[in-house]
């Protein structure tokens, strides 16, 4: 073995070491933690898939299509799903009954004004003192809702029910549910971006996949173009993770792009609204304890990078298939979770 190769292998060993760490977590306390058994089941799954799909071709095993972009080739899947997105039946007056949205009005003034019969911002438009400001607010809620979102952001935390209510004013078609799969948690490549939206009937799931890492940029661009067609992003922890990650990967390739969309991060609501009902707020846990979804043969999130690496190294589509299923299920679960949160947060208990 040459010197350079030996050193390159040593750098690669960092990965092995960190994986060993993961699988050995809790080693001292418990002989078989749930984590460990999950890990070993997944490893077995990987082996089985590698055997089953050995020598097979990814494109002939799936419905993915290869497309050409200005940035090279990438894969794309469009799948119609028989499922509907439930959004809150919010009304503008309901949201605008919060007079505090008007700059300068606090709880005390709001109370005074309500006593005088001003029940909504829309009614306040005629008020001598607050009329002008109220009109600005009213216009925001009548025009493009991004402005209304920004207004709410100024006053409310992102887990405030107003944001759920506001989302009800968007057309269903404008929602983009987003979830991505990456090789790591900081600055490693992203290889799969899922986007679900409402179609003419039911929902449509898009998956944008990099066949190998040289397609990452083309995949990101293709995804971005689809996202740009929508107006509201819905994610699980996407405010902190997915969206900045995508922006970072684009910036890595010299593409400075920000997604200015209003963003509904369900993780924030879940923590607040459903947190007491579950042992933690991982999406998988919520699925089981709240949504009643059971996944079989799932790849745990922490092993997604390992499965994708196995797919790349072995040139075997097997390990990629459960990642695609995992990502698809995440998107669909988010639609269910959204419905659940609306019930819980806006209508009280079922």
């Amino acid at each position, binding site marked *: 073995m040459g010197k350079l190769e030996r*050193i390159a292998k040593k750098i690669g060993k960092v990965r092995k070491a960190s994986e060993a760490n993961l699988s050995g977590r809790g080693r001292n306390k418990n002989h078989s933690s749930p984590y460990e058994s999950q890990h070993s089941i997944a490893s077995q799954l990987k082996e089985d898939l590698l055997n089953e799909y050995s020598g097979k071709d990814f494109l002939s095993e799936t419905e993915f299509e290869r497309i050409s972009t200005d940035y090279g080739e990438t894969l794309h899947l469009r799948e119609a799903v028989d499922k509907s997105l439930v959004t809150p039946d919010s009304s503008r007056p309901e949201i605008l009954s919060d007079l505090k949205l008007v700059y300068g009005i606090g709880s005390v003034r709001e109370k005074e004004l309500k006593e005088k019969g001003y029940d909504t911002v829309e009614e306040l438009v005629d008020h001598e003192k607050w009329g002008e400001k109220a009109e600005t607010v009213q216009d925001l809620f009548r025009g493009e809702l991004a402005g209304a979102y920004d207004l709410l952001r100024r006053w409310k935390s992102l887990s405030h029910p107003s944001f759920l209510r506001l989302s009800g004013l968007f057309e269903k078609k404008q929602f983009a549910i987003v979830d991505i799969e990456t090789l790591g948690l900081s600055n490693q490549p992203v290889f799969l971006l899922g986007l679900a939206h409402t179609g003419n009937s039911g929902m449509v799931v898009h998956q944008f996949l990099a066949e190998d890492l040289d397609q990452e*940029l083309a995949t990101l661009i293709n995804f971005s173009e689809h996202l740009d067609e929508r107006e509201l992003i819905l994610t699980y922890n996407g405010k902190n993770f997915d969206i900045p990650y995508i922006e970072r990967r684009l910036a890595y390739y*010299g593409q400075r792009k920000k997604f200015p969309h209003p963003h509904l991060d369900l993780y924030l609501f879940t923590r607040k609204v459903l947190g007491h009902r579950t042992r933690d707020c991982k999406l998988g846990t919520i699925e089981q304890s709240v949504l009643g979804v059971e996944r079989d043969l799932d790849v745990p999130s922490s092993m997604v990078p390992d499965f994708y690496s196995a797919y790349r190294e072995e040139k075997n589509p097997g390990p990629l298939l459960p990642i695609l299923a995992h990502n698809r299920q995440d998107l669909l679960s988010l639609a269910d979770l959204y419905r659940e949160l609306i019930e819980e947060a806006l209508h009280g208990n079922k």
Partner: protein
Amino acid sequence: MEISRIVESLKDQDWYEGQIEHLELLPERKAEYGQANFDERIKSFLERKGLDLFSHQSRAIKLINEGRDVIITTPTASGKTLAFNVPVFDRMLNDSDSRALYIYPTKALSQDQLETIKDMEADLGLDLEPRVYDGDTPRDQRPGIRKRSRIILTNPYGLHHYLEWHHKWKDFFSNLDFVIMDEIHSYRGVFGSNVAMLVRRMERIFDHYGSDPQFILSSATIANPLEHSRKLVGREFSLISEDSSFRGRKKFLFWNPLTNPDNSAHNQTSKLMAHFVNHDLQTLCFTLSRRLAELISEWCSGRTDAPVRAYRAGYRPEERREIEEGLRTGEIRGVSATNALELGVDIGGLDAVIISGYPGTITSSWQQAGRAGRGREDSLVVLVGFENPLDQFFLKHPREFFDREHEHAILDLDNPNITMGHLACAATELPIREGEDLRQTYSGEIDALIDNDVVQDTPNGAVFSGTYRASGAVKLDNINETTVKIIHNGKLLETMDLAQAYREAHENATLLHQGKTYIVKDFDLEEGVAEVRWKEVDYFTQAISESDLEITRQLEKKKAGDVVVSFGEVSVSEHYSHYKEKKYDRVLDVHPLELPPLEFDTECSWFHVPESILTNVEEKGLGARGGLHAIEHAIISLTPFYAMCDRWDIGGFSARNPLEEGGSIFIYDAYEGGIGIADEVYELLENLLERTYELVMDCDCEEGCPSCIYSPKCGNDNDPLDKEAAVYILEKLGERFVY
């Protein structure tokens, strides 16, 4: 009393037995002043502060204003900081977007320099929000600092991890006009080579954001400042090296404690310090270990009423700052410190400096000596030589010390063990594109990374393809990251690294902290915690260790003539077997210790010296072990020039094998996992041995000297060493090697 009288009065002390071996007078030097052009506001700032620019400062300012990259190598007290702060502030005053990045080798230095910068900022009425950004910076403050601060101070360890998040630094990097790197003599050997690669990574990110900052470097005196700067940053530099500040007369005393065998060197150091302090000389004493810093301040305190303190790494920042402040104001009269105070922490000048034990390099010695002298006053420096051949050699040959060249700072940008990890980091930060400097310089290395799927070649450049963080694959230095917490009454007293804890925090050890003695009640290795109890005892403990080396895997083997040379993996261990209880120099008791050995695995090259040669050596009445040990040292002293490293990056081990099976000499990398130096030594061994032979043979000394077989970092105090045996063995090896 004036300095010469105080020195004379030493001779009246009952413990004086002729210890003064040499007295060197360093003459006074007149200041030279100069002019430079800058903003009126800076001019009046300097006037308010009563600062006239020395000519070296004004020359530095002119060069910086011309847009040159500058390296300043004048001593600590010569106003280096002002020389680069003036042009930086000048720019800040006239360009409200301008940013500057200050990089210091330690966190403590960044904190210290922040104060200086804040003073200047306040005085100029500027609002630059200068801030330190490092591992201690709270997370919620970081975005604000990156956005608003126009001066950020940090260290290489932090930058190594921040660079991959450069998107968050866009505003700062896009407007960056200056990068200041202070104390760059610390960036040498493997650590320095890592920093040099880090600078390459920084530069391509600056380029990405369209900025091209000027680099301003400063360093203690080294032999090769221009070469070192060029290799560190990859540009040509202009050098400012002559100090034109005022220097008072300095007396430099060589003190040989061996002439009074009843008193140890440490004991005499504390007496010297007390003597100076009692004669109203504010004194700084440099010691070789943390423990000695504590002991000497404690012993000294017993001999004077004036406030005397210890200063070392491991203290909490507020403790350190209080001592620094006390030194500046003159309230604290004496401090015994480790080399933590050697770098540019601002403490003002002192009347006297004691260097207790040769610090290992000429550069360090002069750095420490440079702490003596305030303005025009006379000052005093004492070098207390220890009982080892190296220290004693300098005491007996003062010219060898005063005329000796400063060390070379050596960097290696061709060692793939160093460069390849950084290339992986660079590929994480931005794709390494075709035609980039990095791609061209390191095409072989990048190809190997591609072949092993650390990076993937794509139409957009080489992209990091790992599932881990590339920065985790690179360690900038070999400092052990395992730290031990010292807990007193449930509160954190201090932290220390593992090796330190083995020496000072084993069960029943006495641990000194700020003049108080604590006894270690419990040392929990697994948890990394030692519980201590405050208890004044009149003894201290000293742990005794033996080192060992075990070959774990032979990777390569070759024959050079008749001699077998090997390369492979070894395990180096330090076994702490017992500890002594001592009162001053007297051993009261010895106890066994039960600690697993401290081990690290590394790469090593070694060769075997045939028994026949060693038998001959012994028949001649020479020492075989001393000969092998001397050769080990001489090889190590030459290795930096062949394998482009620092002497401290490698370790050696030599042994006379049992059963009369000859002897072995090992040269290993002082880095966990190896760093490629021993590998290089393996390749070059014939050549290296021939040069070693010439070096020892041609050296004019009688029994050895720092130029040939004395090592400044020998774990056995340079004992035993036998120069004649070394020459004989090398000669015989030469016949077998045919060199």
